[in-house]
C-alpha cells in the first residue's frame, strides 16, 4: 500500500514536471517579446474588431473563436485584452494538449505509460507552435477535434452513450476551425467504413450497429455544420470549399474517391491483421526505416515543390523523424500486436485515411501547399501511439546501463523537438506569425504621418492589418481587408503583380517592408488563388530615385515614402513648424 502511494506520488511528479515543461515552452515568446506571438492580426482586425463595432463579417474558420475573443474584448478594456492575449491565452491553450493524454489512458495494453504521451504533447515543435503557442482558431479546433476522438474511443470501448458528447464536440469543431472539421470528417468516415466492414464480416452485434448509426449521424452533423459555416464565409474564403470545388472539377478524382471508399475498409482490416501476425517488426528496424523514409520523402518532396522551404522543412522534420515518428510506428505495431482487431482498427483506419488525404492533397496543383497543415492533425491523433511506443521501448531495455544510455538519448530527442518550436528567422519560410517591433513602429509612424499629411496609406496585407490594428481601424489604408482574395488597386499591389512601375499618387504614403522584397522571398499579395509577386528591385529603385519622392523613415526592416509631403503641408498650412510630427 505504501509503495503504491509512493508510485502514485512519482507519477504525479512526472505529470507536474511535464506540464511545467508545456507551460514554460508556450510562455517563451510572450515573456521574450511582450507581444502576442503569432497573433493573427489580420483575423482580429477584419473580424473581431468589425463585430465589436456592430458590423457583419464573414467568419471562414467558424464563428466560435471570433465570438470568444469578442466576449473577452467586451468584458475588459482593450489594453487588458491585449495582455490576456499575450500572457493568459498561451497558458489556457496549453491545456488543449490533454485529450490525447486521456486517449492514452484508455489504452489497456500492458506496460502503457500515458505520461510519455503527455511529454510528447508538451514538447513536440508543431504542437508547441500551433496548440498554445500562437493565437489562432486552429488551437480551439484542435481541442474539439481531440475531444471528439477521445469520446468516440470511449464509445467504441465502453458505451455507445459516449457518442453523444462526441457529436457535441464535433459540432463545436465545425464551429471553431474548418480544417479541423474536415480532418474530423475524415476520421469518422474512416471509422464508419472500417467498423461497418468489421460488422458485416465478423461481429454482427446490436451495440456495434447502434454505434455505426450514431457515427453516421455524426458525419452528417459535421457536414451540415460545415455547410452552415460555409454560408458565413465570403466567396473563396473557405479552403474546405475550395478543395471540394477542385475535386468536383476533376472527374478522375471523384472516381478515385469512390474506389477508395470501396477498398478502404478492406485495406484497413487487412493491414491491422497483417501487422498483428507479422513477427519481424523490431524497434531497430522500425527506427532505421522511419529515419530513412521520414527524412528522404519530406526532403525529396520539398526539393520538388518548394526548394526554398528546405531549411524550414529540415528544422521541423529532423527532430520529428528522430524523436517522434519511430516511436509512433513502434507503438502502432505493438498496439496492433497486443490488442484485438476491433481495438486496433481505431488507430489503423484514421492513419490510413490521413495518408491517402496527404497524397491526394499533393496532387491538387496549387492547393498542395495545404499539406503543411496536415501533420499537426495526424500527430495530435497519433501522440498516444508515440507514448505507447516509448513505453514499450523502455520495457525492452534489460539493464540499468542501457536504460541510462537510452534515457539520455531520448532526453536529447525530446530537447531537439522542444528547441525547434519557434523557428529562427532564417528558417521561417511562410511562418511569419510573430510581430516584429520594427514593423509595429513602422505602422504606428505611418499612421502618424497620414494624420499629419492627411494622406492615405498604401502597404501590403500583412502590414496593412498591423496598421489597422495600431490605429484601431481608423487609418485610411488603400488596401482592403479581403485583399488576400481580392487584391486592391493600389500602387504596391499593381507593381508587385505586374512588375511595371508607374507614377505614385501624390496623397499616398507608401510603406514597404523587407518581407515584401524579392531578395527576402517576399510577397506583397500572399495568395493561393490569385497572381502574386514580390516587390522587385525596379520598384525600390523607383521609390529611391524618382524626383519628389521623399523617404520619410527607415526602421531597417522597412521604410516610408511619400511624394513631396512637406510642400503639401506648407501649401495647406502656410508653415509647418507648429505641426511637426511628434517624435
Amino acid at each position: 500500500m505504501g509503495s503504491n502511494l509512493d508510485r502514485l506520488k512519482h507519477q504525479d511528479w512526472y505529470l507536474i514536471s511535464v506540464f511545467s515543461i508545456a507551460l514554460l515552452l508556450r510562455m517563451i515568446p510572450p515573456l521574450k517579446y511582450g507581444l502576442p506571438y503569432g497573433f493573427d492580426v489580420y483575423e482580429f482586425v477584419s473580424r473581431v474588431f468589425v463585430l465589436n463595432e456592430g458590423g457583419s463579417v464573414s467568419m471562414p474558420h467558424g464563428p466560435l473563436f471570433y465570438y470568444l475573443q469578442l466576449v473577452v474584448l467586451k468584458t475588459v478594456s482593450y489594453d487588458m485584452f491585449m495582455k490576456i492575449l499575450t500572457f493568459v491565452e498561451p497558458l489556457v491553450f496549453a491545456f488543449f494538449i490533454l485529450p490525447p493524454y486521456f486517449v492514452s489512458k484508455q489504452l489497456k495494453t500492458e506496460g502503457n505509460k500515458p505520461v510519455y504521451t503527455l511529454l510528447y504533447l508538451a514538447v513536440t515543435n508543431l504542437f508547441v507552435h500551433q496548440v498554445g503557442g500562437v493565437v489562432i482558431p486552429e488551437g480551439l479546433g484542435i481541442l474539439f477535434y481531440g475531444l471528439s476522438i477521445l469520446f468516440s474511443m470511449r464509445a467504441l470501448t465502453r458505451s455507445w452513450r459516449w457518442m453523444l458528447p462526441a457529436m457535441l464536440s464535433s459540432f463545436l469543431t465545425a464551429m471553431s476551425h474548418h480544417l479541423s472539421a474536415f480532418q474530423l470528417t475524415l476520421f469518422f468516415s474512416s471509422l464508419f467504413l472500417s467498423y461497418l466492414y468489421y460488422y458485416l464480416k465478423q461481429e454482427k452485434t446490436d451495440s456495434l450497429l447502434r454505434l455505426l448509426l450514431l457515427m453516421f449521424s455524426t458525419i452528417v452533423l459535421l457536414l451540415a455544420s460545415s455547410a452552415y459555416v460555409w454560408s458565413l464565409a465570403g466567396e473563396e474564403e473557405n479552403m474546405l470549399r475550395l478543395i471540394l470545388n477542385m475535386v468536383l472539377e476533376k472527374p478522375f478524382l471523384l472516381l478515385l474517391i469512390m474506389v477508395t471508399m470501396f477498398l478502404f475498409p478492406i485495406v484497413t482490416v487487412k493491414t491491422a491483421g497483417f501487422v498483428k501476425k507479422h513477427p519481424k517488426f523490431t524497434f531497430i528496424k522500425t527506427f532505421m526505416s522511419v529515419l530513412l523514409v521520414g527524412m528522404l520523402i519530406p526532403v525529396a518532396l520539398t526539393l520538388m515543390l518548394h526548394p526554398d522551404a528546405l531549411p524550414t522543412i529540415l528544422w521541423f522534420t529532423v527532430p520529428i523523424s528522430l524523436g517522434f515518428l519511430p516511436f509512433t510506428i513502434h507503438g502502432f505495431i505493438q498496439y496492433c500486436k497486443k490488442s484485438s482487431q476491433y481495438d486496433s482498427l481505431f488507430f489503423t483506419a484514421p492513419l490510413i485515411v490521413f495518408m491517402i488525404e496527404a497524397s491526394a492533397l499533393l496532387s491538387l496543383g496549387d492547393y498542395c501547399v495545404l499539406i503543411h497543415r496536415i501533420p499537426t492533425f495526424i500527430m495530435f491523433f497519433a501522440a498516444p501511439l508515440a507514448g505507447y511506443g516509448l513505453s514499450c521501448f523502455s520495457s525492452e531495455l534489460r539493464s540499468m546501463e542501457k536504460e541510462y544510455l537510452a534515457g539520455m538519448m531520448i532526453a536529447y530527442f525530446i530537447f531537439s523537438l522542444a528547441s525547434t518550436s519557434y523557428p529562427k528567422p532564417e528558417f521561417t519560410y511562410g511562418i511569419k506569425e510573430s510581430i516584429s517591433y520594427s514593423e509595429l513602429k513602422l505602422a504606428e509612424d505611418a499612421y502618424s504621418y497620414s494624420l499629419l499629411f492627411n494622406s492615405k496609406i498604401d502597404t501590403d496585407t500583412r502590414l496593412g492589418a498591423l496598421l489597422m490594428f495600431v490605429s484601431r481601424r481608423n487609418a485610411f489604408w488603400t488596401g482592403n481587408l479581403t485583399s488576400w482574395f481580392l487584391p486592391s488597386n493600389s500602387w504596391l499591389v499593381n507593381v508587385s503583380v505586374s512588375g511595371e512601375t508607374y507614377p505614385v499618387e501624390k496623397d499616398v504614403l507608401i510603406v514597404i517592408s523587407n518581407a515584401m522584397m524579392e531578395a527576402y522571398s517576399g510577397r506583397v499579395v500572399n495568395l493561393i488563388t490569385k497572381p502574386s509577386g514580390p516587390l522587385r528591385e525596379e520598384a525600390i529603385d523607383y521609390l529611391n530615385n524618382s524626383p519628389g519622392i521623399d523617404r520619410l523613415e527607415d526602421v531597417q526592416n522597412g521604410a516610408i515614402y511619400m511624394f513631396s509631403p512637406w510642400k503639401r503641408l506648407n501649401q495647406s498650412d502656410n508653415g509647418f513648424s507648429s505641426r511637426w510630427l511628434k517624435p
Partner: protein
Amino acid sequence: MSRNRGSGNGVFFQRTVFLMSLFLVLLFTSYELLETPPKDFIAVKIIGFKREDDCFSIALFLKNNSSGKHEGHLIFLIGYEGSRVSEDNAFYCFTNFRTLGFRTVTLNPGEGVKLNVKLPMDPEAERIIIAYCWDASEAVQTGYYSPVLLRRDDTVWVQTWIG
C-alpha cells in the same frame, strides 16, 4: 545486485528521461529569455522640414530601439543631377552625391534624440540624404564625391527632394 536495481521495468529510464528533459528545457528556456530580445533596430525619421532664406532646416528623430549602445556617424549627402541610390542585400550605394559633413552621434539603449540640422542652400542640389551609419569603418570625408558605399545592416537613411 544493486547495479541491476530498476532494470527491466523502465523506472530508471523514465527518471532519466524526465529529469534530463526538464533540465534541458529549463536550460533552453533560460537561454531564450536571457538572449537579447529581438527588438534590435535603429530608426530614423524626418519630423519636420523648412526651406529658409539661406538654408534648409530639417528636424530628425533618431532612436536606438536595441539593448546595445550605438556610436555612429550622421552623414549628410547632397545629391546633384544624375544622383542615384541603389541597394542590394548587403549595401546601399549613393552615386553622384557630395558629402556635406558628418558628425558622431552616440545612442544609448532605448535613447531617442531629436536633431535640428541646417544645411546651406545649393542652387544645383536636387536632394538631401541623411544617413546614420554605426560601422566605424564606414567613416567618410567631407567633400567626398565618389560613390559612398554603406553596409545595409549598419545603416538607416532618409531623404528629401529640394530641387
